[in-house]
């Protein structure tokens, strides 16, 4: 049994411990520790990705207790892709933070590494209670990161964010207790085996428990009635933190894909849990996000609403999960995480040059390096609004193609196209306010010294969408294989439990 699968969890954990132990040392020490850990992660993610790409599902039993009695970590194509995405996002975000934002508080690097522990753990675990624990790890770190920098706005945004998520965690625990009380197991693969055998009298309870799980994951991914915390908290966070948070909503979508693909589709009475409400709600989420993009007064909040739009976009095809829709969701997840993260960093870069105005969408002083910043804005705006030729267009095309024969096709197609158009128009308006109508009569502010490191980090994320467009063939082929593995289910279950598992279960009152 290879122990490499533990590295994405243990490496940042040790880095966090070193950062906390060295809290009295200079910031250079913490930066070095954090940087080494974050730069090593992509290397290990590539190793794991290569092993998953050979269609091997690696199962690591903690303490060598076999599933379903012990906790297992499972590496399949989907989780390897998510690990890779996290590692690729963490590097530029950390570089950007090292250029200055990490000095505003002592705990930044420890919290950043703990956030990575939680993310990687949530993607790897094969046990639904352990998923809760890693959710809490990543949430606890995100509470600290959100408050990083201080100030009343951040304290208030954190308060709302923490209370929302605590309520969500409570629901998660209630769902888990219901699942354990009715099904007697918490292992994801084992749940898929047990669900079809549930007695008729217990089916309503099991459906309730699964519906509660969906509510929790909808809260994490900011699906409509539960999405109002997101613009407030992401808009208040320091730029690199907001950029890292771009992947937090995707954890919710990953968890939905995992439980829907492996567990819900296992039995007749749970397979249609998303019907008929998910698509209308996803469409309403897109509408809300698009309205927010038009109405927001600050560029960071605009980007936060773009995150809401991306959630709605992905979930609008998730109602009937088949290989096409799962492929499209996985591809779009990679695209939207990197693009929105880049946009958060760009908003900060622009805000730095506008003095007191910061990122407010008002006429202000002329921006220095107009050509470079304008080009970055153009790339990100084209990618995020889904215009050709970048990856946003390809992702939306795949999403729309996957629902063409479903009964929701007209609604989803109309919403995606109209929202693309409106986001594109809003972007054009923001460009014109920010760049093309400077107040020339005012003396330009004292530009802060530009940082090469910040520029480099920004270029890495801005380049993500064009690069993703160039390698779309291989990425979508991988995503298709990952979706196939998820939908087929049998391989996952056999890898975790062994072929034709004989598990003795006690009968419970």
């Amino acid at each position, binding site marked *: 049994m290879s122990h490499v699968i533990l590295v994405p969890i243990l490496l940042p954990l040790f880095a966090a411990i070193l950062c906390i132990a060295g809290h009295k040392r200079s910031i250079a020490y913490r930066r070095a520790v954090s940087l080494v850990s974050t730069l090593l992660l992509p290397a290990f993610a590539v190793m794991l990705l290569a092993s998953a790409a050979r269609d091997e599902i690696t199962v690591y039993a903690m303490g060598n207790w076999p599933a379903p009695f012990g906790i297992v970590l499972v590496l399949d194509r989907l989780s390897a892709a998510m690990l890779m995405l996290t590692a690729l996002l963490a590097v530029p975000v950390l570089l950007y933070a090292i250029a200055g934002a990490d000095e505003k508080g002592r705990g930044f690097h420890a919290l950043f590494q703990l956030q990575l522990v939680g993310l990687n753990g949530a993607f790897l675990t094969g046990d639904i209670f352990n998923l809760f624990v890693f959710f809490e790890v990543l949430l*606890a770190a995100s509470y600290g990161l959100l408050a990083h920098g201080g100030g009343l706005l951040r304290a208030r945004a954190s308060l709302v964010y923490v209370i929302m998520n605590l*309520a969500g965690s*409570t629901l998660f625990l209630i769902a*888990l*207790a219901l699942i354990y009380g009715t099904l007697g197991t918490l292992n994801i693969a084992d749940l898929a085996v047990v669900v079809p055998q549930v007695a008729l009298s217990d089916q309503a309870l099991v459906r309730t428990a699964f519906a509660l799980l969906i509510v929790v994951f909808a809260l994490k991914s900011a699906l409509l009635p539960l999405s109002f915390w997101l613009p407030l908290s992401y808009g208040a966070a320091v730029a690199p933190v907001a950029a890292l948070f771009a992947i937090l909503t995707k954890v919710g979508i990953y968890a939905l894909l995992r439980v829907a693909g492996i567990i819900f589709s296992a039995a007749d009475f749970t397979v249609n849990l998303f019907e008929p409400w998910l698509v209308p709600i996803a469409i309403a989420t897109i509408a809300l996000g698009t309205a927010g993009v038009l109405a927001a007064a600050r560029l960071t909040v605009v980007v936060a609403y773009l995150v809401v739009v991306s959630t709605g976009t992905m979930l609008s095809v998730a109602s009937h999960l088949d290989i096409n829709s799962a492929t499209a969701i996985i591809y779009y997840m990679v695209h939207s995480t990197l693009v929105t993260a880049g946009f958060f960093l760009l908003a900060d870069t622009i805000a730095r040059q506008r003095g007191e105005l910061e990122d407010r969408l008002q006429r202000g002083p002329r921006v220095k390096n107009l050509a470079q910043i304008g080009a970055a804005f153009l790339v990100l705006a084209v990618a995020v609004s889904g215009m050709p030729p970048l990856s946003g267009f390809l992702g939306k095309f795949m999403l729309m193609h996957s629902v063409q024969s479903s009964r929701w096709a007209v609604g989803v197609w109309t919403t995606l196209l109209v929202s693309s158009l409106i986001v594109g128009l809003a972007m054009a308006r923001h460009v014109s306010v920010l760049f093309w109508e400077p107040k020339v009569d005012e003396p330009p502010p004292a530009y802060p010294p530009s940082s090469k490191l910040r520029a480099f980090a920004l270029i890495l994320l801005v380049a993500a969408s064009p690069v993703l467009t160039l390698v779309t063939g291989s990425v979508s082929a991988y995503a298709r294989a990952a979706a196939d593995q998820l939908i087929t289910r049998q391989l996952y279950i056999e890898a975790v439990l062994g072929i034709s598992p004989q598990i003795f279960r006690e009968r419970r009152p």
Partner: protein
Amino acid sequence: MELILSLGIGLLTATGIYLILRERTFSVLLGITLLSYATNLFIFVSGRLTIGAPPLLVPGQMDHTDAIPQALVLTAIVISFGMTAYVVALALKAKGESGTDHVDAGEQRR
């Protein structure tokens, strides 16, 4: 005993939800605490109620309690305790900076 426990959990949940919907952070905090008590009890009873039985398989003894919910509830207690402590700190910070413990303290209409 089932009836008493389920009524107790229901009462805790209802009180918790009512308090979470209040507008002062102190009430919200109490609500979160009560709600987490209710959840912990709920997890605990998901292993069924058994009296006078060990959470171990002892040779010769027929009945035993399910040990897993006890382990789960321990994890849940630790996490909810830590999180509640953090919310207290955060609420105090927000009150210190704005002078009020209203949940919308310092909100600017823009």
